[in-house]
């Protein structure tokens, strides 16, 4: 019951979010700020996570296949497939759900508690659209770029780890990377990323915007935002995989 009511409230809020911006110049300004806050600021940490993640995938694969029957290009091939299909789109999105989700919810929640949202409403500003819409647009446009960067860096990390630990040769790794490459996999990954980006910002925005109470609840709202956007990502990951890969 509670969940159904929340979903209803979420949909009602989204209808307010997706109305024409009051003024395109104001929207552009907000969009650039959010692009900086939600996208550019995550670049460094996404890069670090990706390199290490790719390295671990490659090393794990190399360690676990000791059979002479398995071809040498397997490490490169497996690394590429895991990174493109799951690690970059899903793990990075889950990570961003933590980083961006808590930020969005606490920022909007604080504005709720300190009556800044009421102040916007009094002026006649559609506060839901003003606050949440630029965040959604920024994430939907920038997360795919972050994920593409993550794919390259993860594969680089995998290659570097394989070569440096002597678990495989550069030539074989690269051979594996090039084997049966399908652009559809990238399309699938980016579609997921875009859906996840929408879920992260809209779900977190919802939890911040609709919170009640004081400063203590802001912390709770941001925890809830992270939990619910992560769950939404996991559920939609399953749904989208069913739809896109079957």
């Amino acid at each position, binding site marked *: 019951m509670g969940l159904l009511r929340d979903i209803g409230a979420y949909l009602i809020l989204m209808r307010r979010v997706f109305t024409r911006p009051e*003024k395109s110049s*104001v929207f552009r300004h907000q969009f650039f700020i959010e692009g900086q806050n939600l996208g550019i600021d995550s670049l460094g940490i996404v890069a670090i996570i990706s390199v290490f993640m790719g390295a671990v995938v490659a090393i794990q694969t190399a360690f676990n296949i000791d059979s002479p029957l398995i071809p040498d290009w397997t490490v490169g091939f497996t690394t590429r497939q895991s990174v493109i299909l799951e690690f970059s789109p899903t793990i990075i999105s889950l990570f961003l759900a933590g980083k961006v989700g808590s930020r969005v919810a606490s920022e909007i929640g604080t*504005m709720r508690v*300190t*009556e*800044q949202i009421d*102040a916007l*409403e009094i*002026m006649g500003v559609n506060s839901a659209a003003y606050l949440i819409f630029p965040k959604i647009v920024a994430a939907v446009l920038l997360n795919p770029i972050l994920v593409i960067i993550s794919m390259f860096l993860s594969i680089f990390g995998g290659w570097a780890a394989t070569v440096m630990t002597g678990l495989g040769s550069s030539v074989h790794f690269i051979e594996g990377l090039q084997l049966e490459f399908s652009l559809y996999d990238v399309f699938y990954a980016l579609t997921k990323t875009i859906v996840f980006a929408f879920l992260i910002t809209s779900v977190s925005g919802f939890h911040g915007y609709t919170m009640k109470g004081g400063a203590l609840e802001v912390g709770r709202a941001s925890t809830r935002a992270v939990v619910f956007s992560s769950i939404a990502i996991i559920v939609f990951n399953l749904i989208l995989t069913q739809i896109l890969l079957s």
Partner: protein
Amino acid sequence: MIEVQHISKAFGDKQVLKDVSFCFEPGKTNLIIGQSGSGKTVLMKCLVGLFEVDRGGILFHDRDFSAMSFNQRKEVRKEIGMLFQGGALFDSMTVEENVIFPLTMFTNQSREEKKDRAQFCLQRVNLQDTGHLYPAEISGGMKKRVAIARAIAMNPKYLFCDEPNSGLDPKTANVIDNLIHEITHEFNITTVVNTHDMNSVLEIGDNIAFLYQGELKWTGDSGSILRTDSPEINDFVFSTELTRRLKR
């Protein structure tokens, strides 16, 4: 002029406002007074549409605000300025950007025009040199003054102030009160102020509504409030030593 006609408001089964009718007059500082919990903030939030009333009407110069849609209300809201209890300044913007914000949102003024207007409003509240600071960098009293500057940026016809001087020292409180009073008369604004500060009541109360447990118990002005024999209001007014001495 804002006319309140028989409005009621409940939260769950708790009746907060009971059949309140009152007329807030233009060019005057209209006060809503009453004890903590008597429903002042709720009444004010009903007036500006942050809460919907259960019954009754709210008329802004004969326009029935309570019956309007969000988009219709927008037009009225452009004529409204509001000062929140905590200031409600936008943390992510400087003082000047806060004052400019409504102008950016609702006018097509050039950058220079907006800056001039912001400077004028900040000057009016004696804060011309703080434009570059962020809300976190100024004091509570200054925040309230910035909030006043932001509220008057659009030349409002109606100004709402929720406890403008709570949490301030008596002198600063007085400065804020007088500022609101002067602006009201200067620009012929219909001003509504929530307060439980007797000092404000006596200094700036042109037209006073006394709320008691959600009911309108008394109306009058700063001159007549000391001479009424309503027991509830006497209890409220003469609750401090200072006012009791005043009576003697």
